[in-house]
């Protein structure tokens, strides 16, 4: 239906982005799986006797098939060992993203992306006939989503630190509403990122070319002159 976009010779996914992306797939899986095994030890949110009423899954044990680490102490060791690699990988990615200038074609920039993102939403809701064209590497909605993930992910790390050391990190823990609320934030950010991942994987299945690019680099589509 659509003609292949012209490709401008620039690498769509530079090496460091590809490596950190696939490393993140492995590391995020380890963190999520071991985290769910830790949750399984006490699948309630809120202090004892003060369960949060808003949490719909009180007492629901995550399925063992989604967990990693086998038992509580095993999962804790996986979680606290791989947390370092998970964060280190993210730092490499972020440093590269900003030092290389890649952020310019990846992060959400309202003058370029807001209208495009909105049109994509209208199209997905069948309120608009044609899908808006990508602007360079991504369309506006992709940029908004990826930027949202990058903005949310630090909360995962910060809430994790608050749960790990609520007494030694009192300001951080207070900022996150105390130990129990930080624990809830830690889980909710995981849920949000897991939902993103589901949509992300579906989109990749619909556009397999992106998976090839993320693995061997590919060529970026030409960015239209403004």
């Amino acid at each position, binding site marked *: 239906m659509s003609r292949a976009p012209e490709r401008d010779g620039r690498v769509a996914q530079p090496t460091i982005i590809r490596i950190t992306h696939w490393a993140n797939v492995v590391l995020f899986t380890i963190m999520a799986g071991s985290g769910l095994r830790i949750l399984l*030890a*006490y699948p309630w949110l809120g202090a004892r006797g003060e369960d949060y009423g808003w949490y719909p899954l009180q007492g629901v044990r995550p399925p063992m098939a989604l967990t990693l680490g086998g038992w509580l102490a095993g999962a804790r060791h996986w979680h606290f*060992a791989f947390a*370092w690699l998970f964060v280190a990988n993210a730092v490499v990615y972020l440093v590269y993203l900003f030092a290389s200038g890649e952020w310019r074609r990846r992060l959400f920039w309202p003058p370029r992306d807001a209208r495009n993102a909105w049109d994509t939403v209208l199209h997905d809701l069948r309120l608009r006939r044609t899908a808006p064209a990508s602007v360079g590497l991504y369309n506006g909605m992709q940029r908004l989503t990826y930027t949202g993930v990058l903005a949310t992910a630090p909360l995962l790390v910060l809430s994790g630190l608050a749960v790990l050391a609520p007494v*030694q990190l009192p300001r951080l823990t207070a900022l996150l509403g105390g*130990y129990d609320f930080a624990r809830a934030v830690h889980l909710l950010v995981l849920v949000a990122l897991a939902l993103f991942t589901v949509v992300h994987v579906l989109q990749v299945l619909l556009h397999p070319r992106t998976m090839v690019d993320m693995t*061997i680099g590919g060529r970026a589509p030409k960015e239209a002159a403004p």
Partner: protein
Amino acid sequence: MSPSTRRQFLVHGTRAAGLVAAGALGCDSRRPQAGFLGLMERVNERVQRALFDPRRLAPELPEEDESDADDFPAYKIAREYPVAPAGWTLSVKGLVARPLQLSLGDLQRLPMTQTRVRHHCVEGWSAVAAWQGVRLSEVARLAGVDARARYVEFRSFEPGYFSSWDVESALHPQTILAYGMGGELLATEYGAPLRLYSAVKLGYKMVKYLSEVTFLPVRTGGYWEDQGYEWFAGV
């Protein structure tokens, strides 16, 4: 796919799979204190020790924050709650100038401290209770602890039940030998006649049904620690 991209794909894929395999090889969930997981536990212990400030106090909470008695879990490691032997005393020994044998009455005559802080369990829950007892640092002062003591072992009269701590956490002002809970003598279900209570460790480090405190130059393990739970377990 052209042959060259296919080759590249295979090279990258094989390299990534190799890295994952190498990482996973060092990880055995059943023996989390060995291999890569064990190495990282020692890294994390260093970080936790660096983060630990012996003067930093956990917030003391108001009475209305206390959990209902039913909400604070009772604790035993065996099928039955252990019962203190007749003539129970606490012995304080090891690298001390004056080994002590303290009865419950002796402990109650020492300066009483109450601490009401959030309790953090390794399982993830938290709860609040008020604990009354004697600061371990007070008992250490009476016994004259030697500067070579870097670790403290706490042992229960329940066979096999013990834990060992870094001396800094043990001498923290919110680490107490508790004989009271909620203003009453400690109930059997919570570790009577005496238990360790602390604001700076996870619950499993707080030995209940306590009978021995030994100051040592080296660390030992613990009932939970020897099964695979982290040794430092600060909060």
